[in-house]
């Protein structure tokens, strides 16, 4: 069996390409997130006037999508290669098309299209306008000009490119099952490739069982309440001036935002567990959104000299 490209060759190719475009090649965030957009290097850096360029491969957990490794397309955790260019350059579509070469796609031989698909994240208080990019009828990327993040209107506008690398890898290699994806070439491994199955199957089975059957509902709710309270406490720092203290402490935004990410993941688990009524579900989304909005507002606060208060 031979394959055109492996998962890790895709990740390496994209990293090299975007590195050449001046991006910081960052590492994935080390907390559970549902999408690459939740990485602080996207959430916070989208705010404010400073330019920024970053690329990273973010493992993204969606407990409700877990299928016990039985479904050929849907998984608890998948990988998103994420690029942020701020401000969005005028030639971003051309750059994107060039980036396809980095994993062996020649746009001259395929039907590449940009089809309207606007993006919204209720929990991040974020929205953007853009497309899903399709190749020969297959969705391979989300291409989004962010307009609002954490409830804050953005200026300048960042553009986000998200590559669904499993799908592209399956498509390119004509594979029908995600677990058959070759992750790495390895002469020490039977067949010459280490497959996705070896790396991911057990985790998928167990994480699905955990999310759907085992997760302790009451404790998840408590943990959610705690994460929310903790985030609010850290965000409150510097607002209520304490008696007898001169220096007002700054909010601790990164730890506060990490609590938001935790709350978001706890919510996803509760949702997958079927523990939330429609109203409760809506209420929790609103609670996470309020925290995201508070984080964003405090991030962009400036003092009289134009310096960020938080940095």
């Amino acid at each position, binding site marked *: 069996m031979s394959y055109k490209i492996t998962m890790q060759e895709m990740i390496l190719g994209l990293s090299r390409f975007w590195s050449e475009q001046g991006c910081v090649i960052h590492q994935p965030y080390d907390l559970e997130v549902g999408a690459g957009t939740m990485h602080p290097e996207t959430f916070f850096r989208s705010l404010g006037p400073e330019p920024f360029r970053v690329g990273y491969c973010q493992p993204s957990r969606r407990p409700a999508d877990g299928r016990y490794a039985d479904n050929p397309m849907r998984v608890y955790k998948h990988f998103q290669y994420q690029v942020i260019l701020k401000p969005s350059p005028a030639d971003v579509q051309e750059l994107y098309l060039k980036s396809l070469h980095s994993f062996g796609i020649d746009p001259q031989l*395929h039907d590449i299209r940009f089809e309207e698909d606007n993006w919204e994240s209720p929990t991040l208080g974020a929205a953007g306008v853009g497309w899903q990019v399709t190749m020969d009828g297959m969705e391979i990327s989300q291409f989004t000009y962010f307009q609002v993040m954490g409830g804050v209107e953005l200026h300048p506008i960042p553009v986000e490119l998200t590559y669904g690398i499993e799908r592209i890898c399956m498509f390119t290699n004509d594979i029908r099952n995600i677990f058959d994806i070759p992750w790495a070439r390895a002469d020490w491994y039977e067949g010459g490739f280490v497959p996705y199955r070896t790396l991911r199957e057990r985790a998928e089975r167990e994480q699905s069982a955990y999310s759907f059957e085992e997760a302790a509902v009451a404790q998840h709710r408590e943990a959610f309440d705690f994460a929310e309270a903790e985030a609010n406490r850290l965000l409150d720092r510097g607002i209520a001036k304490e008696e007898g203290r001169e220096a007002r402490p700054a909010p601790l935004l990164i730890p506060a935002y990490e609590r938001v990410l935790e709350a978001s993941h706890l919510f996803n688990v509760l949702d997958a567990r079927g523990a939330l009524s429609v109203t409760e579900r809506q209420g929790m989304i609103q609670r996470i959104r309020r925290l995201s909005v508070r984080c964003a507002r405090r991030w962009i606060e400036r003092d009289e000299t134009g310096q960020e208060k938080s940095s």
Partner: protein
Amino acid sequence: MKTKDLLIEIGCEEIPARMLPGATAALARVLLSLLDKAKLAHGDAQLFWSSRRLAVLVPETQSEMPPREETLMGPPARAAWDGDGNPTRAAEGFARKQGLEAADLKPVETDRGVYAAAVIQREALGVGDLLAPGFEKAVRGISFPKTMRWGVGLGSFVRPVQWLLALSGEEILPLSLFGVRAGRQTWAHRTLSDHAVSIRAAGSWESQLAEAYVVADPAKRRERLHAALRTAAKDQAGVLNEDEGLLAESADMVEVPAAIAGSFEQKFVDELPEEILKTCLKHHQKAFSIHREGKVLSAFAVAVNMPEDPEGHIRRGHEWVNSGRLEDALFFWREDRKHALVKRAAQLEGVLFQRELGTYSSKSRRVRRLSQQLGSRMGLDDAQIAALAHSAALARADLVTGLVGEFPELQGIAGGLLARAEGLPEAVTTTIYDLYRPASAEDALPETLLGRILALADRLDTLVGGIAVGLMPSGSKDPFALRRAGLGAVRLAASCELDLRSSVEIALQGYSGGDFGPDLRGTATGTLQALEEFLLERFSALEEKQGAHYDEINAVRAVARTSFEPGDLSRRLSALRGFRGSEDFLALAGAAKRVRNILLQAKGRGDVTVPGQNAEFLGAEAEKELAADLFEAGQYMAQDRERGAYGAALGRLAGLRTVVDRFFDEVLVMDPDDSLRQARLGLLASFDLLAHEIVDLSELVVEGQ
């Protein structure tokens, strides 16, 4: 006068197909209004668009405003110069505003007297100079369903602007947009010819683009795509399943009209119902299904933005994706059949219909009861009522199936297919299948009577509940899609011969608390009247679409004061429209209006106006004749009305014209003798009764009145 073709092309990153026609039309309006404002002559605008461009070509546009003398009137001479001929302050002010000295003003003779005028020599101005000042602001003012910002800019547009082409003949116009200056360059097909094309002249733009694989004329592109799709289907030894909407959408998603065909495994055709197969291809991949001799083939055709596929990547890609999607659909179809619909229906307890109206479970209970009540009114037999109840209990069960989760447009249809696969009676499966019909004003009604009753009950429940909790549509806001439900209800009630007023009341009683959702029985009568008014508006809208005039509609709406049976109203309306050309009938309508006024005035003065009162006092030949004819016509018209023979009834009414005319010629109604006056008013009141027995004739607008 020199004229040239004027061309404006705004190049953008991919614009959503649904916005292209409206956006280009708006651009044309902007351009023509700028030309008109500059008083430049021009031909009719031609509209072009594709996913990456909006373009307007205005042929024979005056390319230059020649040098000319312009005379601008200022203050009257009396106010401009004093007795000594010195300019006043008013004259100085006017001159300054025109950039002149007061001494430059000249007296000019007009119809209204002598005025001080500024005579200004205007230099020749090109079309570009004239368009430039207003162009950017006007284009930025074009509204789109959704706009965005990009880069460091503050302006917003449908998508980032990449280039601006602006030519008058061969000449570049000095325009700009979002910091992009106009030139003669356009960009051709993104991958086939990814380079700038330098356009020689406005007139050669379309053909130069075509050489670079872009068909900019939407009609040509659509026609050529249609041909390409049909050829692709033929290559699969089949015929394209035509779909106008899908064709139009596809044509605006490609710049070069090309199509490919592909195939998938036969098992999908063998196992999947045709509806699911077609929907799956269309919904996810915008692909057309292909048939041969009435049977769907295991093949598809789809629009692509590449004319060649030398290595077969594109075909294999589409086959890969379509197979995956069909595999999903097949998975759902198999899974969904593992559970009986009745079990699915139990799950509706957890599915919200509307926040204040509760779950689909309580809706199903209400609709079941309501459909049975409507069925009894219509005289259905016990077996039919039972089938109706059975269908109603299961009709929404497909909401929790995988199929509807994946393809929301299959709701109802999926339920029907699953019911059939489960072996439920045909009467039940067809009734469930058609629950969502009609989906639009043009869509067909459910095939069977039971289907119509259930669909009606479902909509009445939605309408009553929605309006009771304050979701009445206003302007462009209609969050609960009540207008569509209303249109459906009117058409369905017409086909069931049901009275909507009493049906709405029964539907409201259905919201009885407990298992039946909230208790709305105490809803104010004003709310129900508003709903009825809303439904009458839908009735009027439907009839107007059929060509009825508003006064004719008003004439039948007036009859709806006693009952609101859309089918009956519709028949009265068409009978009325049949008489619209009859002179006798129109004259009678005029008389009806006159009688209505006389009666109103008489009532105002305290006269009694009971039909037939004091008839024994009538003496004149003309009034005795009228009384006799009215009596006779009344007898017949009552019978006609009973039989629904509205045309015949209106014909009898028209036949009264001569006696009515004679009455008015020979008889004075307002006789000073009380008894006689009351008798004549009684006669007119009898006529008035007849004049709105079928429709209210006094509502008709008759010429000359």
